[in-house]
Every structure is written in C-alpha cells, then in structure tokens.
C-alpha cells in the first residue's frame, strides 16, 4: 500500500505542478525535503545513543521485563503474539508513556528500541508483524496529555485561555487511539493484508 501512496504523491505532484506552472517549486521541494530528512535522522543520533544505552542498563537490571509483566493483562489482548515477559512490551510501555507526557525526544528512541525487539520475534524480516502494526497504529494516534507546542502558540497569539484546547485534544486523541487498536485488529484478517507464511526451514529469508 505504501508503494501506491508514494507513487501517487509523486505522480500527482508532477502532473499538478506542470498544470499550475509550479514545477520549479516541486523540484526545489524535492531537494529541500531530502536535506531535511537527513537532518532529522542525524538529529536523532545523540538521543538515540543515550536511550539505547539507558535501556540496555534497564534490561540488564531486569527492569524492562518487570515493566512488561506490569502490563501483561492489557498486552496479552493487544499483542497476543508477543511472549508475556518479552522486553518488547517494556520498551513499548516506556515509548507510549513518554509520548503521553509529550517527551518526544525520549519517545522516538524508546519506540525504535521496541521495534527492534519486535523484529527479533519476526519470522520474515521484511514484513510487518501484527504486533508492529498495532504498536504503530497506537503511535500514530497518540494521546498527548499536554499539547505544549499548541498551548505556547495560542499564548503567543494572545488567546484568553491558551489551555482550553487540552481537554478536547485528549478526548479526540483518545478516540483515535481506540479506533487505531480496533482497526489494526480487524484489518489484519483481510486477505490483502494477511501475513505471509513464515519461510520454510532451510530458507533463512536472507533479506535481513
């Protein structure tokens, strides 16, 4: 599906750009975006390194497994394919807690750590597992308890009550979260999205 979305965006951009006479802008946007993407990735290096180190310490101390055990009842329903005390669950819990608190700098590295742990359980390394999709769906619909950026913008623009958007934002994102978990669960059974069979023994996949 991502193949079609990607091709669609590029194709529409070039056709519409040609029709509206904005092809120059389209070209410039392509180069600028490429640079921005690399800047974002390199911007992650420091915090990524920090959190991977801290997570390793937490793992060795048994804390990540402890966290995993804490959310076992919920995790069993959301991620039935992940073993009950697997470190992936601890990392996912930390990621979601960090995004609820609006700690974006911690949330991304912790989430990537969770993906890394989920990938260890994945029989086909190039294909998403049910657990990965559920986890990412929860992430793309994330609840933020304090939308700090928006509150700051509203305050700057002279709002009489900058924080009045907090409750509606929590309600809306809670709704998105519930729908995300439900959609991930229902869609995985559709023929178009069903997981392929794990590679037969002897075929090691070789695509990692």
């Amino acid at each position: 599906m991502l193949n079609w979305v990607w091709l669609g965006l590029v194709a529409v951009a070039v056709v519409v750009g040609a029709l509206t006479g904005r092809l120059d802008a389209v070209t410039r946007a392509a180069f600028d975006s490429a640079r921005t993407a690399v800047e974002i990735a390199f911007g992650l290096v420091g915090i990524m390194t920090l959190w991977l180190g801290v997570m390793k310490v937490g793992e060795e101390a048994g804390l990540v497994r402890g966290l995993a055990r804490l959310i076992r009842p919920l995790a069993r329903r959301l991620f039935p394919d992940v073993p009950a005390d697997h470190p992936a669950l601890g990392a996912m819990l930390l990621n979601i807690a960090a995004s609820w608190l609006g700690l974006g700098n911690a949330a991304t590295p912790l989430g990537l750590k969770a993906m890394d742990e989920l990938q260890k359980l994945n029989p086909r390394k190039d294909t998403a597992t049910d657990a990965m999709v559920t986890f990412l769906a929860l992430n793309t619909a994330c609840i933020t308890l304090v939308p700090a950026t928006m509150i700051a913008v509203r305050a700057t623009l002279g709002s009489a009550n900058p924080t009045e958007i907090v409750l509606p934002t929590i309600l809306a994102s809670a709704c998105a979260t519930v729908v995300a978990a439900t959609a991930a669960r229902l869609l995985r059974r559709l023929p178009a999205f069903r997981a392929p069979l794990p590679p037969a023994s002897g075929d090691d996949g070789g695509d990692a």
Partner: protein
Amino acid sequence: MSFSAIAQVVSTWAIPLLLLLIPLLAAVRRVKVYEVFVEGAKDGFTTAVKIIPYLVGMLVAIGMFRASGAMELLASALAPVTGLIGLPSEALPVALLRPFSGSGTLALSTELMKTHGPDSFVGRLAGVMYGSTETTFYVLAVYFGAVGVTRTRHAVAAGLIADAAGLLAALLVCRALFG
C-alpha cells in the same frame, strides 16, 4: 492545582528521574552500569543512519505534493462534502495535511489562528486537530525504517483510519464545547 499543571510537573521530572533510577536500581543489582550503558549505546548511530533512505523517500514525496498545490485543489474539491458535517472550509487543509506533515500542520494552524484569532471556532478547532493524532507517514517511515521492514501490510490503512477518527472527533468535541 490544575490538571495541566500537574502534567507539566510530571513532564519536567520524568526524564531526570528515569535517568537516575534506572542506573541506580541496576547498580543495586550489581550491573556494571557504565560498561553496559556504552555497550547498548553503540547502536545509536547505525539505527539513526538506517532511517535515512526511508525518511528521504517519504519526505521528498510529501514535499513535492505540497509544493505542487495539489493539496489546495483537493481541499476545494472536498469542501462541499466536508461542509455537510460542519467542517469549516478553512480548517479542511489542516485535516488533510495532518497525516503527512507535523510541522506543516503546525504552520497552517498558526496561520489560521493569526487570521481568525486563537479563540475563534476555526482557531480552536485547528489547535485541537493538530494534537488529535500523530503524523502517520512520518511514524511509519521512521519506525519501519529502523528495522528494515518494507512490507507494511495494514499499517497505512490502520494509521489513516485512526487519523480520520481523531480529526472527526476533534470536530465533534469542538462543536459540542465551543460551537
């Protein structure tokens, strides 16, 4: 103490406490904290670099799409339909852009709040829409990129359905509270 004040305090304390408590508990359990930290941290660079091709691909496509003006065309085509559910046409581009670009949505929302005032219905709605969901395509590119997954199965569909639900909920909640 208001809810957001409490949450603010928790946000301030969460990171320093984690950075203190994790190594402290580990040390109590006889983990060689510094050695283990360095051992885990050495993958930071490769993980960040691994994301680059996925992120470049995604951001370039989205950047081109936005620069072509296709978003405005789509918005004007959809406006009569979304008007039926009470979505102001000014706020429609914010909703359409939300799954593709976080910074773009923030810029659009800020623009709307400047034009209509932060306490107008459109201004409040844009603010709530911005926080109602995450940037789906960014999350998918970064998270799947870090582990090298290219077949994403139902992830795009689930993410977009969740976005639609969040944006629709934002509209309904704003109409109920501020309408």
